[in-house]
């Protein structure tokens, strides 16, 4: 829709009393936590845990809806907004409650695929999966991106990797789970992968190939991945999401890093399957699987709206000379 239409729509929705759509108990403080006893005064202080904005460019705009807290009945409110916007809206979950409670931003022991992870001097990314060197199944490594584990080439072998990632409260030495091992150096041009390994600390246990909400990773996809195929991932920020391959063999992709722009070739592009993004900041390092739970790619970049980029898993395994631990 045009920008003016988006503005008008936003004004119209803000003008409505959307809180009336929620059951009264949902508006009580701590409703999400199950607290039932509150004063009558609290009921009158109604505020919807939801923000609206406008996103888009070049004459194509849509309503951006940010849900800050999940309450009983909030689905109906979001659905009402979707209908009013005739589907031209983008809904995302944000906010502190989600941040504090979801398992993928919390401490996981044994470690889980999809959990928050990072080098001590980074923010956080995602634990992709567990791997070992061919013929050396006794060695345990975790796989994620260079920019998650090796801080864009700035880290040194042996540096501490914490789970959860520093931004989620992970600290050294308390939360150290691995030491930086090999990584593929990022360079200005002709990158194929953004990948690194962490050597697991001896006492740290992990669920070998378990993907929470999905089941076991069944192997590595060897056949060609084609446009339109459905894929899934679990990431630190957006959790479980479903997407669809929107392009293959993407060359000349320039990705902004803190240390500069790096160009990638041979990448996979994924679009969201619904209104919500397939990935957001913090999902870097997520393992992407196909509908038979075979590994297909390692997530590393995106535009936070409708495009996610990932390294084909074969290139990652080859570059680090590793195999998936299954």
């Amino acid at each position, binding site marked *: 829709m045009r920008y003016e239409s988006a503005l008008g729509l936003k004004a119209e929705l803000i003008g409505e009393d959307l809180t009336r759509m929620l059951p009264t108990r949902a508006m009580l403080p701590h409703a999400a936590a199950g607290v039932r006893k509150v004063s009558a005064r609290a009921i009158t202080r109604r505020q919807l845990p939801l923000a609206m904005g406008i996103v888009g460019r070049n004459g194509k705009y849509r309503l951006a809806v940010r849900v800050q807290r999940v309450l009983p009945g909030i689905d109906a409110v979001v659905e009402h907004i979707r209908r009013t916007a005739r589907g031209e809206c983008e809904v995302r979950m944000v906010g502190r409650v989600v941040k504090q409670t979801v398992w993928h931003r919390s401490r996981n022991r044994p470690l889980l695929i999809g959990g928050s992870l990072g080098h001590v001097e980074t923010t956080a990314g995602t634990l992709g999966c567990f791997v070992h060197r061919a013929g050396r199944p006794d060695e345990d490594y975790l796989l994620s991106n260079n920019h998650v584990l090796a801080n864009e080439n700035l880290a040194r072998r042996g540096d501490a990797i914490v789970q959860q990632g520093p931004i989620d409260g992970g600290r050294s030495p308390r939360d150290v789970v691995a030491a930086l091992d090999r990584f593929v150096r990022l360079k200005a041009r002709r990158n194929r992968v953004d990948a690194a390994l962490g050597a697991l600390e001896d006492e740290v246990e992990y669920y070998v190939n378990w993907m929470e909400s999905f089941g076991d990773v069944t192997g590595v996809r060897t056949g060609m991945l084609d446009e339109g195929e459905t894929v899934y991932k679990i990431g630190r920020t957006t959790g479980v999401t479903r997407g669809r391959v929107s392009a293959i063999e993407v060359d*000349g992709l320039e990705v902004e890093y803190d240390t500069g722009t790096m160009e990638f070739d041979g990448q996979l592009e994924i679009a969201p399957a619904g209104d919500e993004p397939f990935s957001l900041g913090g999902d870097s390092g997520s393992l992407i699987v196909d509908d038979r739970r075979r590994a297909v790619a390692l997530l590393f970049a995106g535009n936070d709206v409708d495009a996610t980029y990932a390294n084909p898993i074969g290139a990652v395994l080859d570059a680090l000379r590793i195999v998936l631990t299954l």
Partner: protein
Amino acid sequence: MKAGARRKEDDLELDAARAAKAKARSLFSGLAKVNGVGITRAGGRYAVKVNCESLNVPETELPDEIDGVPVVVDITGPIRKQSAR
């Protein structure tokens, strides 16, 4: 048909799309700030996907095919690493 079965026509079409992909970047230079050229499908056929951060000319002035291969233009904006912010 088994999941891995491919038609010969598909592979020929894919090769044509790869060849067109190689030409797309130079054809689009000056017309748009291109950020990534890949392969997608349009109308059941393999096509070239040209991702742009911005366009310098109206979309109607962009090539819609290269050597008979359809071109799909997408405005993806800037792409960033996805560590937590």
